[in-house]
């Protein structure tokens, strides 16, 4: 084998004064960075393999380890950066499409951080959520134009199915396959505890999790993995997955080696076989085909369950969303280009799609201008990082948000962006039973519950500050936002005023 031009990205610093040769680091590193050298009677590291997931750092009982960015440097070049050169070396060596994971890590502007939130002062009172009522419950689904009642005040309106959320946060689609059984177990249980929903992703619903059906959104994606009667009948809602923010226009591909017996049973495909979900559904090549599938699913579930559609935020998102609303979807989930993924071609992840902030604002505006905003719910996704992002998303027009990356971080993800290797040292994005068990669902679900509860409380605080005591009053309430450091065009798209205006 010829010389590889790649150099390590990270460097493991081991304080030998502290290292006790306990080998915990060695046992915990699936990337095989650490090993014990018998001759030296020392632990040694192979920096080349290190992905900086920090598993070893945190488990080392003597804090003997530090991982730093490798100081090795190329000649500084503003254009031919280290990353640019490295990618070329990798591709020249392998001839492969560069694969990466989790969200777009390029330094695009984060518009959440250019928006600030309003608070009441004097002219109307702030509300103290600790003492005063504060409602976060939302219902997702198509809202009829009006209520019809008879003379005895019986409701005559036939209500379309609604999804009840105790707080406007759901766990976004992550398939069993892309994440582990234990990760799913934690998400499902947390969703139940929180009175919200989690989403199976496109990899089917494990039989163990059928009991969480009322907190489950099942996905129907192009691969149709695990989609059968029971799957559709178990769920609280069905989501047609068209696209994903991290890789709009690109399909998914679970390599055969990850298709274990259990995944095989869940997806209902032979084990060891690639699970390919192409970008398009082959029965949807046009908007009326989407309508056809939406109604096929509604027929399948006797019009009892909301059918949502998830799309990636792309150039035409407003028009597409309008079409989806008119195609009969009960909710539309829009996934911005910073959304996570278990594996995506790096160039797609980094270059395709638009930010969720613009997408949600544009879609909300378009649907309102068409007078159909109430006929569909909007779920914003794609890198919601904290409760303030949620408040801003809802003020821009979302009904609720999906979180996935944040949920995984709560579960221990350290954003090493190596999900695609299947070697997740935190037991999240892996099917290796040695690694999966590192995520204890008992701990995991509590952490998720903590996170969502903490965020919910913060949302209440922010709502209270605005003088609002029901999340409904925040929806599309863009006056509660002001922009900082944006162009007029950006402000216009977001439909908000500049700070000070």
């Amino acid at each position, binding site marked *: 084998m010829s010389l590889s031009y790649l150099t390590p990205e990270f460097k493991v610093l081991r304080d030998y004064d502290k290292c006790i040769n306990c080998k915990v680091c060695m046992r915990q590193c699936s990337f095989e960075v650490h090993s014990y050298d018998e001759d030296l009677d020392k632990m040694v590291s192979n920096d080349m393999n290190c992905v900086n997931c920090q598993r070893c750092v945190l488990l080392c009982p003597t804090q003997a380890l530090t991982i730093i960015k490798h100081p090795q440097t190329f000649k500084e070049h503003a254009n031919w950066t280290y990353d640019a050169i490295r990618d070329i070396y*990798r*591709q020249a*060596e*392998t*001839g*492969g*499409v*560069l*694969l990466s994971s989790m969200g777009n890590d390029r330094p695009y502007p984060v518009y959440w951080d250019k928006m600030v939130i309003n608070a009441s002062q004097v002219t109307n009172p702030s509300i103290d959520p600790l003492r005063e009522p504060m409602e976060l419950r939302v219902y997702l689904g198509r809202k009829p134009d009006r209520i019809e009642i008879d003379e005895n005040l019986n409701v005559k309106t036939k209500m379309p199915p609604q999804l009840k959320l105790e707080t406007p946060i759901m766990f976004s689609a992550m398939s069993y396959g892309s994440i582990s059984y234990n990760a799913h177990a934690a998400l499902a249980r947390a969703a139940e505890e929180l009175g919200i929903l989690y989403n199976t992703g496109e990899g089917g619903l494990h039989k163990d999790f059928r009991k969480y059906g009322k907190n489950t959104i099942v996905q*129907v994606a*192009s*691969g*149709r993995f695990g*989609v*059968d*009667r029971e799957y*559709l009948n178990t769920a609280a809602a069905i989501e047609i997955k068209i696209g994903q923010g991290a890789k709009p226009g690109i399909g998914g*591909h679970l*390599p*055969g080696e990850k298709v274990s017996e259990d995944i*095989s*049973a869940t997806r*209902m*495909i*032979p084990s*060891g*076989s*690639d699970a*390919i979900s*192409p970008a398009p559904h*082959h*029965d949807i090549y046009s908007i009326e085909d989407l309508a*056809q*599938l939406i*109604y*096929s699913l509604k*027929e*399948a*579930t*006797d019009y009892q369950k909301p059918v949502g559609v998830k799309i990636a935020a792309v150039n035409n998102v407003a028009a597409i969303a309008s079409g989806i609303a008119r195609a009969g979807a009960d909710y539309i989930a829009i996934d911005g280009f910073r959304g996570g993924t278990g*594996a995506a*071609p790096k160039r797609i992840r980094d270059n395709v799609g638009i930010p969720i902030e613009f997408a949600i604002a544009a879609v909300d505006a378009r649907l309102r201008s068409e007078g159909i905003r109430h006929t569909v719910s909007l779920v914003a996704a794609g890198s919601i990082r904290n409760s303030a992002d949620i408040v801003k998303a809802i003020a821009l027009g979302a009904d609720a948000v999906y979180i996935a990356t944040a949920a995984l971080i709560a579960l221990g993800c350290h954003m090493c962006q190596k999900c*695609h290797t299947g070697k997740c040292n935190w037991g999240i994005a892996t099917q290796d039973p040695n690694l999966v068990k590192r995520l204890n669902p008992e701990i995991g679900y509590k952490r998720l519950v903590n996170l969502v509860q903490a965020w919910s409380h913060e949302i209440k605080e922010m709502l209270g500050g605005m003088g609002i005591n029901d999340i409904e009053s925040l929806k599309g309430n863009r006056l509660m936002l002001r922009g900082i450091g944006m162009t007029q065009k950006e402000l216009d798209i977001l439909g908000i005023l500049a700070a000070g205006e």
Partner: protein
Amino acid sequence: MKTINALGIYYRDLNEIIKELVRSGEDIINLKNVNGQRYIGDNLSGTTKINIEGTPGNDMAAFMDGLTIEVFGNGQDAIGNTMNDGNIIIHGHAGDVVGYGMRGGSIYIKDSVGYRVGIHMKEYKDKVPVIVIGGSAGDFFGEYMAGGCMIVLNLKNDENIVGEYCGTGMHGGVIYLRGDVEDYQLGKEVIKEKIDDKDYALIQKYVENFCQYFDYDFQKIMNHSFVKLHPIGKRPYGNMYA
């Protein structure tokens, strides 16, 4: 047995009637004058036989899990979409995307089919989906096929038994063609082979059904050479990524 004149009945109303009957265990439902009504048999299970006269609309038998549907006419697009079990017999041709994501059951089509038939068919354990086509098939036949069995008989001797890109991305299952196919018509993930006795027995089993449904001479069909297409591996794109 129940007979319904579907003339002018909107699909939703028609399906409500059908669902009711199927769920109450009706053995045979005859649908007359069907034209374009969608989703017949959608997500239904049971042993009911539905006979359709006319042209049923798209997504017939989607998510179906049991039942037998016999169409005395042509079918449209997306028949047997994500179907789990059951049997479909079409006395005519069918459109595009037949048997998409189909996991079990069987579809017999007397004449030809359109594009993208058998895309993403998959098998799991005892569930092995089967599509038998009397005529020929369009492009992208068996694309991403992950399991199951498809047989194209080309009884009208069309120039091409299948279109181009046959078996692209195929990683499971088997396709049998009565006649031969040029290499350029095949996706790079499939290999063509002669059939062996085991294959022959399998073909025979399904062709027997075909002949019974459509009244063809079994021997005449079988007195012809077949080729077999199967995937090179279970991992068609294993080496694509760095």
